[in-house]
């Protein structure tokens, strides 16, 4: 057997799998996927990541890739709900109150750039909605979001967010997968790769897309990148089940059952010829899981048991059709979390194919109208979802994240009625397990143009989210193409001040 010392150069080793297996003392069952997930036989404790720490590799059972796994350290949050708002919400028209904008309204912005993403910049514009103090904390929130405003005492705002791109797709990629480029594992994929799930009959990670469709970066926002496909987000919503979930209409239930019976017999005979082969056993197990999902997914999607009171609170009726559909998605999100699904990513907006401001928060013109339209869809159902989680005691172990890819400019676009993209400052909020409530962290400058105090980069933000899930962002790694890849690349610091 090779001596690891001889393999060693600069403290990094590769061991072949035999040795790893010897060390880990695993039986042959479960080997195939496990060893695959060890990344080509790289053994965690002999590798240093850029931060100088050793990776912690989850031990994944091929038969049950979603089996719950231990976090790196104990933490309150067991599950996470990410509410993602594509298109960029205007922080200065919602949660980031800037009195200077009133004073400077209609004037040329002092020292602000002449050209931004879409072109020349115009004059400063005061918020399009009035701000007032809310809750016991007296947090200033605009009238655009009256329902969410009621819960500010439970939220932990970060006003000093900044990102490194002013283009939507790259911004979406960055906040959802840690890289502006495509093909990297999403936050949800990393979390389920590390932690598995509490429910073996449902996908570990569900992406509930907006009724209007996928966001600009499409599947990349919830993809598995170079992680195994098992950890990609499964895409379904209240109105559309996952692809191929349902038995085809042309097949009777009995016929379906017959196929399954025959398949089981065929596979059992075949396995007899390859005793102890983990890949084969794992694949048989995946069919059993699929069978259970065919029962459990329709069940969780079925909202008929929800009370009238719930439907009303979420705003299923009485608003726009889109609000109704989004509200149903919000109820679905709660139901999935109740069942123990590890990560739920709820989208409020899609790609811009409907035109400016019609399908997401992007508001280059007539922000007054388009933001109002998006807020009508988002505000009440999201607030109701939050209240529901709280009332059911689910916030004790559920982390809630509300985020957009960047903010909007304090000035209008030249000769325009909308605000351009602002990567320099924006607001996100956290709530629930492990997070301070009624707290605001960081500040943008007097116009909300750039993060001014306690800047939080997207890397810091993601490092903090992983920390809240009990994961060390420097040790949750996966070997890919020469590097121990992380959600946070080689950056990121946990923002300690937001932790409860």
């Amino acid at each position: 057997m090779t001596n690891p010392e001889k393999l060693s150069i600069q403290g990094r080793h590769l061991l072949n799998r035999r040795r790893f297996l010897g060390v880990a003392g695993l039986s042959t069952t479960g080997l195939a996927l496990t060893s695959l997930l060890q990344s080509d036989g790289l053994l965690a404790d002999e590798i240093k990541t850029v931060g100088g720490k050793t990776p912690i590799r989850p031990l994944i059972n091929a038969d049950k890739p979603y089996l719950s796994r231990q976090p790196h350290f104990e933490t309150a949050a067991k599950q996470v709900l990410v509410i993602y708002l594509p298109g960029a919400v205007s922080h200065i028209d919602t949660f980031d109150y800037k009195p200077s904008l009133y004073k400077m309204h209609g004037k040329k912005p002092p020292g602000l750039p002449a050209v931004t993403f879409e072109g020349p910049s115009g004059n400063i514009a005061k918020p399009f909605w009035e701000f007032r103090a809310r809750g016991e904390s007296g947090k200033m929130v605009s009238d655009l979001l009256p329902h969410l405003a009621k819960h500010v005492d439970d939220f932990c705002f970060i006003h000093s967010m900044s990102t490194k791109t002013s283009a939507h797709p790259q911004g979406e990629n960055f906040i959802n997968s840690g890289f502006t480029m495509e093909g990297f594992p999403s936050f949800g994929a990393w979390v389920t790769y590390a932690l598995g799930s509490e429910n073996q009959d449902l996908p570990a990670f569900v992406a509930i897309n907006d009724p209007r469709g996928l966001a600009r970066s499409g599947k990349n926002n919830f993809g598995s990148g170079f992680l195994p496909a098992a950890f990609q987000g499964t895409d379904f919503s209240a109105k559309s089940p996952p692809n191929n979930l349902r038995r085809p209409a042309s097949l009777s239930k009995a016929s379906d059952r017959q196929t399954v019976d025959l398949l089981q017999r065929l596979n059992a005979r075949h396995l007899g010829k390859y005793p102890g082969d983990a890949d084969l056993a794992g694949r048989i197990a995946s069919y059993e899981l699929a069978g259970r999902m065919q029962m459990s997914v329709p069940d969780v999607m079925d909202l008929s048991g929800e009370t009238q009171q719930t439907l009303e609170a979420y705003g299923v009726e009485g608003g726009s059709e889109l609000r109704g559909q989004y509200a149903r998605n919000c109820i679905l999100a709660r139901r999935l979390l109740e069942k123990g699904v590890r990560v739920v990513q709820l989208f409020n907006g899609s790609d811009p194919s409907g035109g400016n401001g019609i399908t997401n928060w992007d508001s280059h013109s007539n922000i007054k109208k388009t933001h109002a339209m998006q807020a009508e869809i988002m505000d009440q159902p999201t607030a109701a979802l939050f209240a529901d989680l709280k009332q059911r005691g689910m916030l004790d172990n559920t982390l809630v994240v509300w985020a957009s890819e960047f903010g909007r400019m304090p000035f209008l676009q030249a000769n325009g009625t909308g605000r351009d993209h602002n990567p320099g400052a924006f607001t996100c909020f956290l709530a629930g397990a492990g997070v301070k409530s009624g707290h605001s962290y960081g500040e943008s400058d007097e116009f909300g143009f750039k993060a001014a105090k306690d800047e939080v980069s997207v890397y810091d933000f993601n490092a903090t989210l992983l920390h809240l899930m009990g994961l060390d962002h420097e040790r949750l790694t996966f070997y890919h193409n020469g590097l121990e890849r992380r959600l946070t690349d080689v950056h990121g610091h946990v923002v300690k001040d937001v932790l409860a």
Partner: protein
Amino acid sequence: MRFGSSGMAYSNIVIAFLLIQSIVNGQEINFAEQVLPILENNCLHCHNQDESESGLRLDSRAYMLRGGDSGLAAIVPGEPGKSYLMEVITHADEDMAMPPDEDKLDEEDIDLIRQWIAQGANWPGQMDAVIKDDRLEHWSFQPVTRPDVPAGEASPVDAFLKKQLTASGLDFSAPAEPLALIRRASIVLTGLTPTPEETSEFLTAFQSDADKAYQALVDRLLASPQFGERFAQHWLDVIRWAETNGSESNMYRKKAWVYRDWVVQAFNDDKPYDRFLFEQIAGDTVGQGEATGYLVAGPHVPVATVGQELAARRQARADRMDEILQTVGASAMGITIGCARCHNHKFDPVTIKDYYSMSAVFQDIEFGSRIPELEGEDPRSKTGQEIETQIASFREQLREFGPWEEHWLAFREIHFEPVITSAVRLNALSKSIAIDEFEVFGVEEPGVNLALASRGTKLISPKEMFKIGKQRLEAINDGIYGTEKWSALQQKGSDEKPWVEFEFTQPHTIDLIRISSNREDFFETDYLDKINKGNLASYRIEIRDEDGKWKPVASTPQYKELDQQHKARVATLKKIRKLIQRNYREGFSPSFVGRLIEPQPTHVLGRGSPENPREQVFASGIEVLQGDLGVEPNAAGNQRRVAFASWLASEKHPLTARVAVNRIWHHIFGQGIVTTTSDFGLAGAKPVNQELLDSLAADFTDPVDAATEPWSVKSLVRKLVLSKAFRQSSQPDAAALRKDGTSSLLWRYPPKRVEAEVIRDSILRASGCLDSKIGGKSFRIHNVKKRYAQWRVVDNYGPETWRRMLYQERMRRVDDTLFTSFDFPDCGQVKAKRPVSTTPLQALSLMNSDFVIDQSSRIAKRALEIGDGNRGRAVEACFELLLGRSPTDDEKADCVAVLGDGDLSLVCRALINSNEFAFVP
């Protein structure tokens, strides 16, 4: 070394000059007394032998010269201005100010260090010190040697494996059953399961002479065009080739598929691998222009979605160059050169300077389309040339009727009698106009665009007279086609229609104008709702005569009048139009294989940021791998690529052959001898059997057998599949599994789940639906979409889709709702190899998708025809079509027990989902 030596001479002069100066000033710095104490008190605590923060050591002169991870030299003797140490101690950049979290050094100390560097950084006793780089000892950077083949086995492959197996107390397994063998060889070599006829033929032949039968099988499979399709699929995976850009609009790349076809053909022709690499990097120089689709295989963000900020555009260009380097690094070099983009590579001896020197090689490449260079005898070339000749003669016929306009699909060409002028004016005849590029050509230098801003041509178009869209006037003559354009609209209450004047630096005789509103749309993309098909508002072109008066030369209304006057004109124009269309279909047409541009100077970008350009660099390979390309610093772009490709595809390069051989081994045996197939650096895996790898690599470039061509992929593949190792059984063995759980020593053939393509193609073959046409336009499964919408699957199972999955339009990060769950790549990041994972979504896809349900019925129908009324025979046929064998009695009994006389398609559905169907046996 050429640059090094001249640089040295220069710096010697500088040093001499500075020495003279300091002697004049009478201030020779004493290092030990004046400089070392400053370093000791402020720097060495973190930058020493034991603790070299950021990879930087300041305790020796040689390390100072090398610098830290940043890749920037801490000191450049004689040049404080170029010494990074000066930058950080003077706090030139607040983010990189040293010492950290402490006060800046005293000005006096800073000045001493500055003077010390200016005087040549004299460090007594260390002036000749060099750093020995242990990393260069790494196995894969050593020349390939040819190890002696151990005795005892017919094939060197088996001999090296056997040696290692014996050392581990293992041995090969028994030979595989012939049924397993033909299935395995067919899947591995062609990606298709064998037909029942092929199987029975093989079984018969195998009984009379097993060896001969197997060799004949291998020869047949290697000669079949499906071999090229199978290996093309592997290659396209690695370089994440796709037919869309990725990013927001994820637009289709028109005719990108010509590259895919080139790869298929290259494998089928057994194009030598060194040539295969060369042509993908510099094929434009040898009539193989389609091959350069390789360079633009990765994703890119089109300028329209990058935004208007110049910094963002510079960043986007740097990102595109990075995609090119990642492609080359991962597929051909086996080095993760992308890691050196922001700082020196953490593990491998690749510096940030190497990275940008390699980026200089590709500076003439841009993501986009061009008409690919073809060999003279290529039928498309001939057709194209014929058409050009015919058009030229028709043009002669047109001259007598005055000016005319030709519609070249993406742009218009306006032809008129040669006229001398120093200015041209374009007048819109409608309220609004949008032009992405306006080009003027003269008779003195045909083909040279006189309107380009870079030639000094000035634009005049008073902004206040028209309402201008958010795009700029300058876009009209910046040489960039596409969505960036000048758009202008008549003001309310004004009768002034938009116009623009082009003022040349001197008079020219001109006779041709080319004009378009969005040339990119037609040339580069497709399947978009409201795609621009060469639309253009009506216009009038004027020139300024010697008296300064504007004189019309051509206009849209004029064409109409002339058409009415001359019937012959109309007929000739129609003929030209037809020829243009034919040329696009059968002759010269733009394909998404990269656009060639004028290379710009390349600089090292500090911390990877285009906003932080450092020293200028010139085209080169990796320095420590003899990367000097011997090209002039400002050589033309294609010369740089030719030199680089020759360096890379050389039998002396220690990595190229090893990486190639290992990747092919990976495709044949399921795991590489080096498991990290794209990383042969210090962070990659060690070879499981280096002697074997080196023996294969040596024989690949320089075959012992005189009948074998050097760099022949087919010969290598044949050698591997004829080995005992490939032909042995895949049966597990408990004792052997304990010693080698993943069969990496090849005591058995390791079984593996097949890829998405094999499943799909084999199902289609079983039903008899598979259309085996090679190459051409991809079949579509998606909609025609709005520009900024996501692609949506419309039909992924109908007759139009019954081709091999290699020809399914390959969209970046789009869920095909069927095979994405089978680890089908999203084509975002380089994938050295496909992961194999098992998920319930795969089960759902194979149980319930329209494709499987439809195909199950078709296979059942075929089986019933074969059975010809005999139910038992029909059941047998299902097994034969899908598994290549008859059912056992037990399995027959299972079918009866579960189904009775029920729907036979359910048997097919079960077989498609069975483990036996999904695994290479």
